[in-house]
């Protein structure tokens, strides 16, 4: 009885909650601003659909009852068509569909573009594991069993399980992942962020999210080393069927306060240097600098200075933006596009420079370019402390995120 009273007592509060519908449909509200927009869109379509459905079904049932068959009576005559009615019911849905299309496209663009200064990580997918490298080079050392369920543990069933990595990210800070796969197609889906993106073996795609700041309702972690801190876990699923253990290919994205994120990176350590440092080493080891300079002077091949994210002329007359996928092509299939003024004499590095190493080289090339949004921001910034051209997240930018994302469409484009 008490439980009943409590429920009835709480009902108005429960109904007043803005995201009650979100909870019914999604289990919880979205944890990114763009995800919130997507939920709003879903609710709009849902309520249009409910009204349309109820209207149609009530008509259908009422007609069925009102005009049920009576013996020996023919159906009374009625018009076989009505042009005005038919035009109306063609145009009205079309208007609604147009609204859905435009609003959906707007929300999608907001979801696809990362704000300037995002924490830029490299992500590699393989059967059946995700691995992520932080911009400063660390790899997580924490893993958890996320699928298989508690029930399996109770029954002490033994089955092969792939452990899922736990990745730490600071709350409120935008994150951008440069993603590729080493085998088949995977798909990066974090339901809490309402966004997914396929991950391909032959190109880069990107995924961005700006997690909402932690609130008082977030869970509390008692850590011996770092003390107590609040955190929020988001499950990552693989959403493109990839073989036997497709359903175990998960990871946890753990949102923590900025200082905990930094402390965790400290703990993870980085014996191999930042992604950019490693990229430089890979370039040195593979002899890239015998043809390419980094100081702007011309050599056998074009210089890498200011190459990334700028447009260049090619021998076939086209102009191409040197983005992630163009650099990938130029290193793996050098003859596909040859820069105007240079001969086609580079050999393919496919099989020599791995997909993972290529990601490092791109991170390195990015530090050489003034054309990245981060570098442009730094160049115009008044703040003398702002980091210049490093392609890393400015420490001071852990902002509200919410408003930023919608306005930053000129940010790093998604590979898509």
């Amino acid at each position, binding site marked *: 009885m008490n439980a009943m009273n409590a429920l009835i007592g709480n009902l108005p509060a429960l109904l007043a909650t803005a995201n009650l519908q979100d909870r019914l*449909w999604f*289990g919880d509200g979205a944890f990114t601003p763009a995800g919130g*927009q997507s939920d709003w*869109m879903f609710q709009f*379509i*849902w309520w*249009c*659909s409910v009204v*349309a459905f109820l209207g*149609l079904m009530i008509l*259908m049932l009422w007609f069925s009852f009102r*005009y*049920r*068959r009576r*013996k020996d*009576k023919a*159906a*009374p*005559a*009625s018009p076989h*068509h009505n042009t005005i009615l038919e035009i109306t*019911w063609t145009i009205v849905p079309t208007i609604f*569909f147009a609204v*859905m*299309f435009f609003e*959906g496209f*707007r929300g*999608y*663009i*907001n979801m*696809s573009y990362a704000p300037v200064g995002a924490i830029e990580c490299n992500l590699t997918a393989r059967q059946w594991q995700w691995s992520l490298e932080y911009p400063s080079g660390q790899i997580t050392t924490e893993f958890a069993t*996320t699928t*298989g*369920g508690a*029930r*399996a543990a109770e*029954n002490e*069933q*033994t*089955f*092969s399980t792939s452990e899922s990595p736990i990745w730490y990210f600071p709350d409120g800070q935008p994150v951008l992942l440069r993603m590729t796969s080493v085998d088949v*197609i995977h798909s990066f*889906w974090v*339901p809490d962020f*309402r*966004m*997914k993106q396929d991950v*391909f073996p*032959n190109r880069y795609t990107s995924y961005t999210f700006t997690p909402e700041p932690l609130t008082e309702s977030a869970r509390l972690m008692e850590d011996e080393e770092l003390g107590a801190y609040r955190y929020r876990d988001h*499950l990552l*699923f*693989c*959403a*493109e*069927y990839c*073989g036997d253990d497709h*359903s*175990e290919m998960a990871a946890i994205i753990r949102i923590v306060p900025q200082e905990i994120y930094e402390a965790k990176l400290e703990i993870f350590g980085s014996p191999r240097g930042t992604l950019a440092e490693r990229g430089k080493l890979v370039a040195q080891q593979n002899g890239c600098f015998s043809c390419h300079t980094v100081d702007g002077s011309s050599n056998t091949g074009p210089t890498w200075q200011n190459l990334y994210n700028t447009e260049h002329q090619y021998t076939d007359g086209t102009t191409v933006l040197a983005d992630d996928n163009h650099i990938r092509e130029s290193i793996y299939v050098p003859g596909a596009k040859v820069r105007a003024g240079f001969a086609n004499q580079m050999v393919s590095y496919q099989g020599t420079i791995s997909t993972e190493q290529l990601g490092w080289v791109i991170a390195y090339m990015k530090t050489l370019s003034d054309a990245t949004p981060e570098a442009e921001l730094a160049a115009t910034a008044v703040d003398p402390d702002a980091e210049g051209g490093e392609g890393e997240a400015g420490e001071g930018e852990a902002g509200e995120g919410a408003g930023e994302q919608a306005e930053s469409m000129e940010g790093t484009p*998604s590979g*898509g």
Partner: protein
Amino acid sequence: MSSLDSHAGSAPQHGGGHHGSYLTSKGSLWADIANWATTVDHKKIGLMYLTAILVLFFMGGVMALVIRFELLEPARVIANPSGEGTITTGQRLDFLAGEGATANNIYNRAMTLHGAIMVFMFIVPGIPASLGNFFLPLMIGAKDVAFPRLNLASWYVYLFGSLFALASALVGGIDTGWTLYTPYSTITDADHWRLVAMITGVFIMGFASIMTGLNFVVTTHKLRAPGMGWFDMPLFVWAIYATAIIQVLATPVIGITTLMLIFERLFHFGLFDPRMGGDPVLFQHFFWFYSHPVVYIMILPAFGVISETITCHARKNVFGYKSVAFASLGIAAVSFLVWAHHMFTSQGELTAAIFSFLTFFVAVPTAVKVFNWISTLYKGSIVFNTPMLYTLGFLFLFTIGGLTGLPLATLSTDMHLHDSYYVVAHFHYVMFGGTVIALLAGLHHWWPKMFGKMYAETPAKLGFWLVFLGLNTTFFIQFVMGAHGMPRRYASYPDEYQWMHMVSTVGSWMLLAGFLTHLFTFIHALLQGKPCGPNPWGGMTLEWLADSPPDEHNFTHEPIVKHGPYAYDTEIPPHWTADEYPLPDEPHKH
């Protein structure tokens, strides 16, 4: 005054003509087998197709039950390697797996076979090859299809192709998903020959589809009875005609695609292999360039069936005949332009935007059709027999299926819902709630015509309610599950989804009960059904002029058409009285 009369101006004679019904035995069992195996009669070929697709529907359904059974629990109970204590489903299903197959592997095979059987072998041939074959010539007053031998060839090609696919399934099956996405399907080694066999089967069955489509296009153009203009055709004929056009134009694409996949596997062409400069997404474009139009190969005939059943059992001319007919053609045309909406998460923003826009275009004519059907009920004389219940059930389920497609066409919401259980629920509401329900409506509607015997209403209605409630129980919860974050094709899942999976599994058992009830009513009707006369529903389309079951050559006299197919609401047809054509819920008086 009915002007839909036979040439001689007299009502068709019961059992008239010297040929006898097409079901008449040739004397001995062997003679009958030889006769059916070599028949060029569209009715017999239609019946053989019907039998085949129902058997395959049963097999695909068993796979669905296996899937739902496995998903009862989040842990992988399906194969417990230690095998102690619990009887795991894995042990029961061992025959499906080869050496060293894991639990996930068994689930993935069941999931793939369910999709492959249901799509390629059941629902694509589905209504056109069975009911279409049987009724298209009858409804336009023809003796047969334009190319009867091609029709028989199509049946054998289909049989031959499905043998490849079934052989592949019986020796272990494949685990690629029915979509066969590269590079997984080209680099997975475990199932090499089974994969080649399955893809070859799909390749071969494509030809059957093309032959049938070609046949129907020509039949519709050339063999209409005297007096039947294009706008005197029943809407089922329009729907089958639009379907046939898609079959002829789209199916070659899947032929080319499967051929490339076979070459890729056998000879390592590298078309889709990134290590050789190929592109895996290219396969997705090829695949969906066929597999999206094929969605309309599945659903357009269902629209056709519903247009027939709703007019006949509500005794009303369909509201807006021309807009329903043109909507079929419009959908057929636009269906070729929306394939990439299956790939919003695998392509650039501009492509996604264009295909999202085009997708909404296909929604308009579909919505218009639903409005037309519901308006047809207005001022009708509606009887609640099994075909009508299935028709109303179709309107209910298909409307849900259509409306829940809107968040999938909208880009920002699709980013979340794509490849989740929401999509699974959506296409089951369309394919199952649409096509299968329409097939059941059509089967009950035309059963007396095909066999000359009436099914029993009460158990058939029970079957309807079990199927209808089971379908909603199984699939509605999956919308919520998908929005909560449950991905497709998962053998295992986090605990929080378990209660929803349990609800869904219970629904699948209700569906089983419903289909077994229908199996019983159909067998009962064949053995003990009451004779029903040529026109038990008082239908106005031409097939009701033929005997039940029809004469070997369909009509004893060539029919002449003097008005449209749905002249129900002018007055009571002269020979339609309560005595002669009793209301279906009354006992038969003859």
